């Protein structure tokens, strides 16, 4: 194999693999530190995620959210932007979905209403990203800080909406009324039942198809259209982009809107797929998880699908751990996310000198 091919294997597969393994090892250390046997924990985790039908359903349901937010972060990364606002964009995207579901005439067919709801998610997610995007492009305000601020603002906005605007009169908890059934996305177990197969009930619903569709769309867009080319060129070199007739400022705004729109799709799973109403914090943690997924998946849809699945496993496995073990809560998954981001992002090149020395040395 030529040295170039070897380097491609190292950079594309081995390096991320080693990084992820290190993150796992570090988690094992954390387990040990709090007095839990990491092997036992891993067994419980894998069993909880993949060992039985219902668990598998949950795993895939969680993974769906990570696909959306992972794609969102990845698209922004390709333009050289770090979108940390996924939490807020997902949250407000949900508002868009809810508004369609609650206020558009429910007499219309599901074939119209569901795409409309999805569009509502896309639109509102994009809207929540456009101000930080504009400020970065045209006023030089650091997008990392503005998107973090917008996460906090989303929280405040959504609490206000749910407590004062969308809450049913006389209801105690801050949530909207139920969406009309016509706008619900069918559960997978219901679809299977329709064909005569009985599988365990879980929140897994057809939004997973939406996720797969958008993965394909993003792949095609980034590598097989001239706009995707423009985005990737801008991300690599601002100067080369200008030289090529691309307007980097426009690209920044457009890319962030796409990114926000993708994040806004989390509600397609959580709201019209599972809970069928709008409620507080349905987005919690998926925005930041998207960062880990994008980094682990190296900003490519195929990698993102794999990474999203992995995080789905971790989430569901984490729930099982929380259930089985007394001194572990679901927050262990947050620790894992942080470690993945650290090793796949900040310490990305940790193993590269070693791998190159042993596997692709320079012939002298």
């Amino acid at each position, binding site marked *: 194999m030529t040295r170039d091919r070897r380097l491609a294997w190292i950079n594309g597969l081995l390096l991320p693999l080693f990084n992820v393994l290190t993150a796992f090892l570090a988690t094992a250390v954390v387990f040990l530190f709090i007095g839990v046997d990491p092997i036992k924990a891993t067994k419980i985790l894998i069993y909880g995620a993949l060992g039985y039908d219902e668990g598998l359903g949950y795993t895939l349901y969680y993974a769906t959210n990570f696909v959306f937010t992972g794609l969102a972060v990845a698209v922004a990364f390709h333009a050289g932007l770090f979108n940390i606002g996924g939490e807020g964009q997902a949250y407000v995207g949900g508002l868009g979905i809810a508004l369609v579901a609650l206020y558009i005439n429910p007499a219309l067919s599901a074939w119209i209403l569901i795409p409309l709801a999805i569009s509502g998610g896309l639109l509102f997610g994009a809207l929540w990203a456009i101000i930080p995007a504009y400020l970065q492009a045209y006023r030089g305000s650091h997008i990392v800080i503005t998107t973090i*601020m917008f996460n906090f603002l989303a929280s405040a*906005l959504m609490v206000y909406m749910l407590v004062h605007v969308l809450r049913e009169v006389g209801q105690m908890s801050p949530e909207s009324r139920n969406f009309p059934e016509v706008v619900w996305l069918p559960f997978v177990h219901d679809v299977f039942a329709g064909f005569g197969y009985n599988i365990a009930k879980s929140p897994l619903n057809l939004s997973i198809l939406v996720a797969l569709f958008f993965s394909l769309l993003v792949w095609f867009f980034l590598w097989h259209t001239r706009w995707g080319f423009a985005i990737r060129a801008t991300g690599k070199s601002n100067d080369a982009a200008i030289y090529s007739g691309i307007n980097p400022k426009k690209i920044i705004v457009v890319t962030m809107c796409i990114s926000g729109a993708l994040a806004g799709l989390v509600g397609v799973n959580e709201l019209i797929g599972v809970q069928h109403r709008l409620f507080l914090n349905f987005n919690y943690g998926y925005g930041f998880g998207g960062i880990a997924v994008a980094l682990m998946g190296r900003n490519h849809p195929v990698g993102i699908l794999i990474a999203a699945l992995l995080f789905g496993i971790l989430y569901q496995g984490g729930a099982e751990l929380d259930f089985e073990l007394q001194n572990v809560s679901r927050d262990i998954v947050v620790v894992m996310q942080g470690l993945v981001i650290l090793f796949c992002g900040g310490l990305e090149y940790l193993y590269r000198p070693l791998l190159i020395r042993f596997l692709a040395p320079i012939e002298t």
Partner: protein
Amino acid sequence: MNDLLLNLILTLDASFRVCIPLIFASMAGLFAERSGVVDIGLEGKLLMSAFIAASAASVFGSPWIGLIAGMFASCVFAMIHGFASITYKGNQIVSGVAINILASGLTMILTLAWFKKGGITPTLQSDERFLSITLPGVDIIDHIPLIGVIYRELISGHNILVYLAFAIVPLVWWVVYRTRFGLRLRAVGENPKAVDTAGLSVEGLRYKALLIGGILCGIGGAYIAIAHNAQFTKEMTAGQGFIALAALIFGKWHPYKVLAACFLFGFLDALALRLQGVVLPVIGEVPVQLIEAIPYLLTVILLAGFIGKAIPPKASAQPYIKEL
């Protein structure tokens, strides 16, 4: 004593207390940024330090041990950030975000593992916290109109970390502009190659800057948990690490201007709290959520540059790669 004036003084008093973590965090950020390293992880360091300080203070029964423990924890995280960004030349913002998320998760896991209560540490007794100090002469000056009140409410009656914060700012200024270390620090943030060819270690200077930042964040976090409050609660830093960053940019990386920015944020925060539940003419009652949103809104407005352009140190956010 006219009511409005008293209210103003009390609000200012509250502002002092509220802006303290901002001061420590922004000074920490100042050292990092001046050396050319972006530190998004201020929030995570504050949080981790708050947790460790509260835990140590509870377990060992002393606020001073809590303070030192908090400083240590913050430094550990600072060194992780340094290792990733300086030695391994990784993306500085990504490693900062990693620190924040790690801190979030670890604090929750450890509260459960150590104290069996998810998300909070045991409430601290009075002798396990830093308490208000009454400055000498309060009683004597008290009956002087105006000055007496100001002295009693505004100047006296803060805990020691508050006084420390205000003392630290001139110290930071002196270090950055009057010492050899400060000259080298500013140089390495503008042109690290110039520093390298002058025979100095770029990495060493940056690590030192991050270490100082770690210590400062440690004090800030300890303040939040064991001085301002009496325990650690989930996510108690509530974005102050990010607001500190905004203050740093707003203050154009200059110690005294940054202090003014911190105070401005603190004042607005304290003001917002006072307005809670108050029915204003015309507007009516201001929704709680809007009041909570004010610091974040203000940060965005500031960053949008309506208050002048901010030019960071030239080498900011770029790992130093040795090549001609």
